[in-house]
């Protein structure tokens, strides 16, 4: 008996040594993991070529900074100061001296190399477990040089996935509304940027009011509300081609659009004679279906990831509350019963939670509840904030927040913020202009 236990122990020990680094993403950023991100090694010829093409002094350093910033922003990692690194990037990538990295308290180490081959950018990187003295992961890929920021995001995603056991969310984009001008006459434009705020691009000119853009599951298409010719209607935009079209032919305002999880339908509200109900339109055969039929306001619909259910808000009880129904509109069930008003429900990509906006006693909250309405948890309180959108791994929410103006009506601003599902790591996302209505894309590389 004892002998058998001993044998099992002997087998288990080395495995335990492998599993030394693990990041628990359910507990927030109480103990971020110290990681060393070594600048990616680069030879002189490659460096000169990238400098010529990308106007960056050292692309290896630049990419490692992206990796570092992403991991830091997640709140789960603590990237160490590069000044303390004892080993040069080239040697570290071949065979790190683990004692040196251990000395500066790094638990994980990222090394790598960038080369210029056939006008392309080739990157290889390695993730090392410093305590166990082992390589955990090694990957290489090639892309066009202009994709260099995405290279940094992809490396960060791979590191995040290897250390947390869940997919990352760094190689993603945010579609949002860029805002400018006085509060009484805001100029709003459709805009898109990388998740970290870089590569910002405007998709409309600001001639007409645009609101609430949302990505399709494949990220190619965006659905949004436009006041083109003073007719508020749901539109569909192909980001690659720039082609736009009105969704359906409704004799009145359509709004609050979202894609179904398979990308084949758009679900939205249609308002007529003072009543808003929920409709879908099939993008292939153009068939319009009425999903809800009630004299109250039914809006802000969002599908469950399996497409079987829809959550929405309705004031059928007298006040705005959250409901869940089958995707055919049957079995409507109210799920929010706390104090206050509840709106903008969005189903988590993991399927287990619904994020929402809550108004109670003059304060606005972003919160989550289980899909049956139990386990309500408020993550953040403010003067005004709403419209959460999930990161593709269901760990982070992005939303917008507006400031209170002073007695003269001055001091208005609208900004994008993100917060972890844990309620920790609340952060403002820098944007060129004021911003609202963010929607998070799925992972670009899969």
């Amino acid at each position, binding site marked *: 008996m004892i002998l058998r236990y001993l044998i099992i122990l002997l087998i288990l020990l080395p495995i335990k040594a492998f599993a030394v680094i693990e990041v628990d993403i359910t507990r927030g950023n109480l103990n971020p993991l110290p990681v060393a991100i070594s600048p990616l090694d680069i030879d002189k010829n490659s460096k000169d070529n990238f400098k010529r093409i990308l106007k960056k002094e050292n692309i290896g350093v630049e990419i490692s900074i992206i990796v570092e910033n992403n991991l830091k922003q997640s709140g789960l990692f603590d990237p160490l100061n590069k000044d303390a690194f004892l080993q040069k990037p080239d040697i570290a990538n071949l065979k790190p001296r683990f004692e040196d990295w251990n000395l500066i308290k790094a638990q994980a180490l990222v090394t790598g190399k960038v080369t210029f081959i056939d006008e392309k950018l080739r990157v290889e990187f390695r993730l090392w477990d410093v305590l166990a003295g082992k390589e955990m992961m090694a990957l290489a890929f090639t892309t066009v040089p202009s994709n260099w920021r995405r290279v940094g995001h992809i490396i960060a995603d791979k590191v995040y996935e290897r250390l947390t056991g869940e997919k990352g969310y760094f190689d993603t984009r945010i579609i949002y509304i860029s805002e400018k001008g006085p509060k*009484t006459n805001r100029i709003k434009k459709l805009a898109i940027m990388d998740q970290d705020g870089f590569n910002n691009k405007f998709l409309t000119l600001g001639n007409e009011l645009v609101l609430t853009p949302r990505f399709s599951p494949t990220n190619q298409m965006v659905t949004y509300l436009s006041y083109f010719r003073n007719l508020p209607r749901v539109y569909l935009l192909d980001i690659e081609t720039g082609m736009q079209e009105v969704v359906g032919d409704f004799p009145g305002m359509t*709004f609050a659009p979202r894609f179904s999880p398979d990308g084949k339908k758009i679900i939205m509200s249609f308002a007529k004679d003072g*009543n*808003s109900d929920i409709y879908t339109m099939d993008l292939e055969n153009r068939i319009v279906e009425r999903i809800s039929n009630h004299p109250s306001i039914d809006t802000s619909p969002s599908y469950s990831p399996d497409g079987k259910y829809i959550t929405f808000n309705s*004031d059928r009880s*007298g*006040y*705005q509350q959250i409901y869940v129904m089958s995707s055919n509109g049957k079995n409507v069930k109210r799920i929010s019963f706390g104090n206050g008003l509840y709106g903008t429900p969005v189903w988590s990509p993991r399927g287990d939670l619904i994020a929402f906006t809550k108004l109670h006693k003059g304060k606005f909250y972003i919160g989550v509840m289980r899909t049956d309405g139990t386990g309500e948890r408020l993550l953040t309180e403010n003067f005004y904030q709403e419209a959460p959108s999930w990161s593709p791994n269901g760990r982070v929410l992005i939303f917008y927040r507006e400031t*209170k103006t002073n007695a003269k*009506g001055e001091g208005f601003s609208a900004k994008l913020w993100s917060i972890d599902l844990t309620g920790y790591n609340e952060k403002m996302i820098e944007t060129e202009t004021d911003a609202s209505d963010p929607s998070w894309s799925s992972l670009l590389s899969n």
Partner: protein
Amino acid sequence: MNLSKFLKNGFLILLASLVLTACATQKTQTGQLQGDVYTGKDSVEYLASGVPDRVFFATNETVLTTASRETLRKQAAWLRKNSDLNIVLEGHADERGTREYNLALGERRANSAKDYLMTYGISSNRISVLSYGKERPVDSGSNPLAWSKNRRSVSVKAN
């Protein structure tokens, strides 16, 4: 459904009586609010002499007040006199609600004004409805008085 409507009406009556009792103090405080419905003239424009262009609503409400109905009767009379004119009813909400719900609320407010105009003989094909939700406030303040001015339906000449 019937029950909730009944309860809602009951609540309104209760609210109305609260408003009545609170009236004296409210009026001396600001002179521009009755309950939380705006009664001032600040942002009001005129379609013709003595015909105000807008009506105001209580928070989250689409019910027309006595003053609103009076304004709309004046608008109806003016529209009857100018039978070649069409109007757009622009419905608005204050900033204290989620964007999408407020779009629906603005649409409902404008329709509540439209329905009233129709009962005074104005044909529905002379009236179109456009909701701006909370996108076009007239007062950029973040206070109850500013919000009360922004909860409105404005009649705008369409031709």
